[in-house]
């Protein structure tokens, strides 16, 4: 018995190291954002900002259109999430409900897009957006993100979990495809849709690279883009302010995750596995 507990302790050690590495930078980010300049450089390692100050946040609020950034980020993330879920659900439903020629080929070609490196796509897409006059607009950021190979894959995977007889029973009752989707499929996979939706939202909220190209005017920036302004000149001295913006950027995803973590992790553990 004693050796068993001892063994268990041994295995906790590497995990605690990992927890420290994963957690400390986040704690450090928040605490630095609450320190004034002196504290930042003199009590660098002290996790407690004593006394805490909100000056960094006030400076940001006073000098930058922070609420515009938040609104821009939210607007894009919300639209992207809704449309991504929509296109993924519709396509996935076609794959489980219908039999058609080249079904596997069509599915694989959708899944394959998931592996195309983004830089391969940015130049032509940038030219397209510029031709459509969508540069510097949230639509330019959103349009290419309205579909996602991973989304189609995850949704199909989830829908495959629905027992076939349930769909057949509805079909025998003369339910049309839209009725089957609305009355049988959607209610059954609601939890997965919400989880995937949250994930899409977080990903889009955090998106940096594509918005960087499309959004050039400062007032159209999203939060991750705004971050860049604080580090430009060779690690400038505005660390407190940079950390304040970083904290604000991280808050919504962190909060979403903390509230729904069990839900998200479970859905992921179920759907992350290849089938």
């Amino acid at each position: 018995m004693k050796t068993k507990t001892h063994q268990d302790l041994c295995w906790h050690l590497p995990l605690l190291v990992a927890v420290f590495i994963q957690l400390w930078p986040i704690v450090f980010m928040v605490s630095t954002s609450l320190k004034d300049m002196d504290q930042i450089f003199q009590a660098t390692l002290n996790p407690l900002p004593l006394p805490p100050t909100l000056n960094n946040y006030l400076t940001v609020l006073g000098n930058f259109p922070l609420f515009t950034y938040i609104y821009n980020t939210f607007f894009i993330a919300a639209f992207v999430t809704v449309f991504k879920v929509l296109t993924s659900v519709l396509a996935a439903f076609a794959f489980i409900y219908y039999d058609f020629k080249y079904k596997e080929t069509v599915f694989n070609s959708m899944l394959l897009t998931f592996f195309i490196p983004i830089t391969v796509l940015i130049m032509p897409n940038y030219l397209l957006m510029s031709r459509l006059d969508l540069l510097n607009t949230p639509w330019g950021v959103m349009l290419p993100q309205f579909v996602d190979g991973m989304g189609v894959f995850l949704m199909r995977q989830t829908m495959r979990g629905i027992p076939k007889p349930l769909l057949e029973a509805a079909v025998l009752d003369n339910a049309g495809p839209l009725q089957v989707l609305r009355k049988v499929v959607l209610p059954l996979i609601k939890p997965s849709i919400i989880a995937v939706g949250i994930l899409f939202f977080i990903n889009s909220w955090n998106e940096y690279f594509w918005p960087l190209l499309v959004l050039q005017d400062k007032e159209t920036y999203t939060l991750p883009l705004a971050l860049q302004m604080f580090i430009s000149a060779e690690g400038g001295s505005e660390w407190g302010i940079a950390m304040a913006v970083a904290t604000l950027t991280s808050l919504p995803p962190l909060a979403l995750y903390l509230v729904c973590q069990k839900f998200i992790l479970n859905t992921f553990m179920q759907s992350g596995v290849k089938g």
Partner: protein
Amino acid sequence: MNKAKWPAFWFLLPAALLFVIFFYWPLLQNLYLSFFSWNMISPTMKYVGLSNYIDILGSKEVYKIIGNTVIFVLIMLLFNFVLPYLYSFILGHLLQRGKMFYRSVLFLPATLSLAVASILFLWIYNPLAGPLSIVLAWFDMESPRWFKENLLVIFSICTIIGWKVFGYNLIVMLAAMVAVPREMIEAAKLENASNWTIFRRIIIPMTSSTAIYVFTITVVFGLQYVLVPVNMLTQGGPDQGSSNLVYIVYQYGFIFFQTGKSAAFAIITMFCYMAFLYLKNKYLEKKVYYEN
């Protein structure tokens, strides 16, 4: 199950249309652009045939870039594939208590933006006043310039990616770990098998399909994640020391404004990706144990 073809088409249309416009058409357009010399702004494009490709393949730069890419991949495989694999085994089968806690906390960084992670580590790695330099000073060591030295810069950037992606890959691996029936491990324990034997003889074969998936996304996505810290912190420097096959396409396109070369690089990069996926399918998928 259902025969009618047209309704299937309507359901697929929105996704298919977007995939064609924003994924497949750009691929073709890259191919087209790669035969021209253009600066993205001038109204005229000059047809140059294969010379973009010849220039690229004849330059020293491309080999440095490929070398960097390989180093990036190797380090990321350690942080985002090997470590999550081992940790998920500990978490799934060796620990009795605290699993939920570890699972939740280790996933936290995965929800943050890479832009945030980049800023955070820029400060942590700051050679003059950053926290890491203070810790190193305790041991009388001088902090290296993490983002300014060849090779070291790749390692530093990989730690950022590792920090952000570790938790996600851990969760995916953990799902596969938990799916290994407990009876199987208990049966092995009755035979007095060591944990290492269990890991090697039971866990690795039983989780191989997910492991290959994680391996793939580590390579394929890792190189794209790298874009954010590279662009924010080093712009590919020092002296292209942190550029790679994915970033170089952006560099030529949006920094050097050599659209044709950028497109040619895009095609080469795409070709490398496809070669990787093909080799993976050919050599790895065969050895995999699939449940059904």
